[in-house]
């Protein structure tokens, strides 16, 4: 960290840039909390903004793992499912648990799960690891369908999301759900942004760029990888809660299939690995393209991904 301190001491503070950043942040806040809730139509919020926010958050989480730490994962939607079902069960089984606590607990269960399925990363590299994350994908979907306990023995396996409220204020309306989503996404994205610029974030990048070299210069590779899996799964888990509670309003295993994992992967690929902003831009554009060619969202994003590579 001495190096960082030196850098900071040498570089003069760029005031113009700082002001620009502050202005941008203010504008973002005004749009997110003022303009959108006041003017956006129900359709815009329900069909575009809510899935956009949830999937972008998932993409931010996956990007931390794949883009920054270099561990390819094909099981993102399994972690989303763990988060969503975790939140549902915490809410159901613990009386009067505040929403924020429920979400954090759901995130923690997804993180624990992520660490377990991240363990193979200590031995495996590249594709071998990617394929082993598919184990998580199939196992979670199987377990959630097979054991009725997770869905509270609901015969159809599809359960409706609980009533959402913070400090007695109901958030069940479209605007309320939007505010919940946007706040969660902003807080977590800010945390991730801080994280990737911290010592831990640098360790992630070191492990990604050259694991052996990272080990040689003293980066705790094993801990770093597991930490990346834990934090990334935490975020993806909370994204799963948003996806199920605010967008779909139901919790069902089939909603978290392999295609969803690929979709999140496409988002980070097109938006750029190791780019937080990319996660948001792409999610937006792929949603707008979907409204023009329904059903072909995958082919579109696939085409985009190939094009993005060729250029």
């Amino acid at each position, binding site marked *: 960290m001495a190096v960082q301190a030196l850098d900071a001491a040498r570089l003069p503070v760029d005031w113009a840039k700082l002001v620009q950043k502050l202005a941008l942040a203010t504008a973002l806040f005004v749009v997110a909390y003022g303009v959108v809730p006041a003017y956006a139509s129900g359709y815009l919020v329900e069909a575009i903004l809510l899935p956009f926010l949830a999937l972008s958050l998932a993409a931010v989480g996956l990007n931390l793992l794949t883009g920054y730490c270099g561990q390819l994962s094909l099981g993102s939607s399994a972690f989303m499912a763990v988060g969503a079902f975790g939140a549902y069960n915490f809410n159901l089984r613990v009386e009067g648990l505040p929403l924020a606590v429920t979400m954090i607990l759901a995130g923690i269960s997804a993180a624990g799960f992520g660490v377990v399925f991240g363990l193979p990363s200590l031995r495996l590299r590249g594709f071998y690891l990617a394929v082993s994350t598919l*184990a998580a994908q199939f196992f979670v979907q199987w377990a959630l369908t097979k054991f009725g306990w997770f869905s509270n023995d609901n015969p159809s396996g599809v359960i409706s999301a609980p009533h959402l409220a913070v400090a007695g204020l109901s958030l069940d309306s479209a605007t309320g759900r939007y505010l919940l989503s946007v706040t969660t996404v902003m807080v977590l994205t800010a945390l991730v942004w801080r994280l990737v610029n911290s010592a831990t974030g640098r360790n992630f990048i070191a492990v990604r760029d050259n694991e052996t070299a990272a080990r040689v210069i003293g980066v705790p590779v094993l801990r770093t990888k597991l930490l990346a899996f834990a934090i990334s799964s935490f975020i993806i888990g909370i994204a799963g809660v948003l996806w199920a509670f605010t967008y779909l309003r139901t919790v069902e295993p089939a909603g978290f299939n392999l295609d969803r994992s690929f979709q999140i992967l496409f988002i980070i690929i097109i938006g750029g690995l190791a780019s937080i902003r990319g996660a948001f831009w792409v999610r937006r554009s792929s949603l707008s393209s979907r409204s023009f060619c329904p059903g072909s969202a995958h082919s579109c994003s696939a085409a985009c991904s190939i094009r993005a590579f060729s250029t």
Partner: protein
Amino acid sequence: MSYYDFLFVIEVLVGGLLSGVMYSLVAIGFVLIYKTSGVLNFAQGSMVLFAALTFVSLVERGIPFALSLLITFAVMVALGFTIERTVLRPLVNRSPMTLFMATLGLSYIIEGAAQLIWGTQVHGLDLGIDDTPFEVGGILISSFDLLAAAIAAAMVAGLSAFFYWTRIGLAFRAVADDQFAALAVGLRLPRIWGTVWTAAGFVALVAGLLWGARLGVRFSLSLIVLKALPVLVLGAFDSILGAIVGGLIIGASEKLAEVYLGPFVGGGIEGWFAYALALVVLLVRPSGLFGQKTVERV
């Protein structure tokens, strides 16, 4: 364990081994491309689907069996060649992850194209092989599976002969061994990659016909890629022998697990058991059973 129980175990085992051969068929297509170009071709599954769908649609339009086979083969060759030209050649020297993503995207495009060209209905595919089980020492064996295994064996033998006794096969092996060295002695990499994609197209055709005859030609056919992946990691991405042995191990243990382990956890474990098994093997041997050990340098 009584005699009949024992027979039952053997029967499950044989059935499992034979279905394992079917997994190997798909896995070999992956290995061919991975070995020579380092690309994990996720689109192999949709190539299988595309081949089967093209063939069955041609047959249904009244074109004779042999001619349809020939046309489909030509189409697959063209497809393999086009993929190499338009998708992979511009991406030469990118990271393996990038190439994988490109083929992942490609698989959706091929699936979409197949849907556009041939429609979405399910077709039955009759290869003229009858599937009456016959009995060997009290064990029932499916004759179709046995024939499929024979075809797979013939294909592997053919591919091996090709690799060992032809000039281009020798070039393949040189490229698989060391791309830079192969380039340095004057081998034309693009041409070799083109050929290997052609070979993968051929393997996809064979796999497509057999799988299509087994399950019917439908869009879920491209999902067999998910059956081939654990086979690949178990046996190693870069070994044809690994793909075969891996397929046999996965096929047999999957069936045995479904019969003997399934009832305790509520069944339906076929979806993930292969992955769990592959994972356990990988923890002991991180680059698969037959993989080359990688040496790491800074």
